[in-house]
């Protein structure tokens, strides 16, 4: 029987997404540490619910059995370990969470901010039963404002929302935003808006001299752009699968 390889016209979309993970760094002896963890869990109920948890065991002298026991103890407490950081190759095995590396530190406030919202919500719904159940709070659309030029080689990444730049974006620089990009200056580098799948994102600039423009994965290079738009104040948006550009007044 002949096998027919159908070529799917739509290629598979691979997107990047960043999630904020909570990193737990246990210290030996584990029993004492678990007691302190229970104390924390009692004070902030549901802290670990729906959060990816990474276990950091860098520098700990433990064997596979001890690590398995710790993971089991955490599972009992409803803490699901997504992956393990800093473990020696020998102590990981099949059936255990995979190893992970390359995490970047984030300010402590970013991690603790959200559970406070959840706690307040839990308190609200508990105290007033008639109140309609508030939908789980989506982080409010944030916006990043940068007041200096973005220099060549610099990369501004802000998947959470819009980016506004009071200055120019130099050739060789890039701005990647989950929302729209507003540039009060010349755009000479790359601007990628709607990077997490937002087709309604737009790009605005005072002087279009861009190397590359992208909205929701659809891109246009300098060569493909209308020569009449070069050096003009332009807004760009997505209509279906094409990028439309229009000069701003």
């Amino acid at each position, binding site marked *: 029987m002949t096998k027919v390889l159908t070529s799917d016209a739509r290629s598979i979309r691979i997107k990047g997404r960043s999630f904020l993970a909570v990193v737990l760094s246990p210290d030996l002896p584990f029993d004492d540490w678990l007691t302190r963890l229970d104390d924390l869990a009692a004070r902030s109920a549901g802290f670990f619910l729906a959060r990816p948890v990474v276990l950091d065991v860098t520098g700990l002298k433990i064997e596979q059995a001890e690590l398995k026991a710790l993971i089991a103890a955490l599972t009992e407490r409803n803490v699901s370990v997504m992956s393990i950081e800093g473990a020696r190759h020998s102590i990981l095995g099949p059936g255990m969470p995979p190893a992970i590396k390359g995490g970047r530190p984030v300010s402590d406030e970013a991690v603790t901010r959200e559970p406070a919202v959840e706690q307040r919500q839990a308190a609200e719904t508990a105290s007033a039963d008639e109140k309609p159940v508030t939908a789980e709070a989506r982080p409010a659309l944030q916006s990043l404002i940068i007041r200096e*030029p973005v*220099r060549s*080689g610099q990369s501004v990444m802000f998947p959470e929302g819009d980016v506004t730049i009071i200055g120019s974006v130099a050739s060789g620089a890039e701005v990647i935003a989950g929302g729209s990009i507003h540039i009060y200056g010349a755009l000479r580098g790359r601007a990628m808006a709607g990077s997490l799948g937002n087709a309604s994102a737009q790009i605005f600039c005072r002087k279009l001299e861009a190397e590359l423009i992208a909205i929701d994965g659809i891109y246009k290079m300098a060569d493909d752009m209308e020569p009449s738009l070069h050096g003009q104040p332009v807004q760009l948006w997505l209509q279906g699968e094409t990028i439309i550009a229009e000069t701003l007044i």
Partner: protein
Amino acid sequence: MGKVIVVTSGKGGVGKTTSTAALGAALAQNGDKVVVVDFDVGLRNLDLVMGAERRVVYDLVNVIQGDAKLTQALIRDKRVDTLFLLPASQTRDKDNLTTEGVDRVITELKRVFDWVICDSPAGIERGATLAMRHADIAVVVTNPEVSSVRDSDRIIGLLDSKTLKAERGERMEKHLLLTRYDPARAQRGDMLKVEDVLEILSIPLLGIIPESMDVLRASNLGAPVTLADARSVPALAYFEAARRLAGEVLPVTMPGEKRGIFGKFFGRKAA
């Protein structure tokens, strides 16, 4: 306590070493104690331009590795006695520069000298980042052409991220020194105009050094431009630039051109 200036550019061959020597000599002629330090380990040029290539015994790497004391490595200039040179090594390379070693040397130099001028190598790697690490002031040397401007922009980005000042959250004082400027070619459109460069780089203008044959003559003689012929056009421009570094407010003019047309450069600041 001295001030540390880094003369950097990103792009090679734009005039960093020439400018380091010229500015150092100009500041020293005012009576200030100046040391010019060559950070281009393995490809040293500052000693040639200063005319000290036959008097180099110890160099920066020797001092960092403890083979020599700083006083043994410093070479006093024969023409201006407040001007000193700390040469680079020619036989080693940039991997011999250590952060702690450079910290030690610069701290010691700052105690003794009014101005420590670091001649950065081209590029953005270790040599360049170590040269800019301790700077209080940066002089970004740029030619008015597209590749030099883009590389200078990259270097400015690094000045705001890879220096001690950036780590402490302070702003580094940056100045643009436009070198090898040819007004006729700029007029024809072959070269970028001054305002184009300033618009792209957005840092204050320190001075415009015109393209001139005096620069090559001076380096062949082994003398900084400001010592070889103090009345030549580039030397005058360097003297003015040195005065601006010292804090004077002078309008930037194009030497040799009528003052009136360039009146708009008066007190030119960043966009």
